């Protein structure tokens, strides 16, 4: 069964038409003992089919340890959204419902290489010179 019906696919196509630069989704998965890995993989494949500016790379969490280390992924399913560089954007768990909207938003922002934040916020963030790791915990919507 497909995630997107025709109407959703068209709507996505319309939104993703605003993409500027290519975006790479790096997906970490495994076959067993991962309740939502298969579904997440399918969701990402369907999403990548909507725009030729989205590239999907799939790695096995158990076997591709080098990539797991390189991307600092510690649980699965994990989806990295990156552009010409890795901004440190990760989705853990299946990005469906409201979280899917957040995924599309991240893809568009990465594609523009522009956060869209206010000038005041940008000014404050320029002062940051130490690591900040933000985890936003959510539940399915």
């Amino acid at each position, binding site marked *: 069964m497909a995630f997107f019906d025709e109407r959703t696919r068209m709507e996505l196509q319309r939104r993703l038409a605003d993409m500027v630069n290519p975006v790479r989704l790096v997906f970490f998965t495994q076959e067993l003992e991962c*309740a*939502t890995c298969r579904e997440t993989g399918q969701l990402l494949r369907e999403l990548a089919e909507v725009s030729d500016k989205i590239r999907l790379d799939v790695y096995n969490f158990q076997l591709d340890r080098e990539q797991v280390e390189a991307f600092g992924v510690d*649980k699965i399913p994990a989806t990295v*959204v990156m552009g010409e560089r890795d*901004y*440190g*954007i*990760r*989705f*853990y*768990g*299946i*990005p469906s419902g*409201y*979280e899917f909207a*957040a995924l599309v*938003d*991240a893809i568009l*922002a*990465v594609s523009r*290489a*522009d*956060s*869209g*934040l*206010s000038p*005041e*916020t*940008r000014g*404050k*963030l*320029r002062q*940051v*010179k*130490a*690591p*900040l*790791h*933000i*985890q*936003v*915990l*959510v*539940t*399915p919507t």
Partner: protein
Amino acid sequence: MRLAHRMAIESEWIRADMVEVSEFPYLITKYQVMGVPLTVVNETTFIEGALPEPVFVEEVLSALPAPSDGGESGT
């Protein structure tokens, strides 16, 4: 969620995870999650609920150690 990811785009010092926490129940225990969204910054600062951009940014930045180059005295 979007704010956190956008902050990660803006600063190379910031990384941002969205965690669908029902898939990782050990995190519910670890962070004593009572409601969502719950934002955890550097394992030390907890932000409950969805906040407007200026407030959220201030809360996140409060996780940073206070500047040590003089300035305000805390006592």
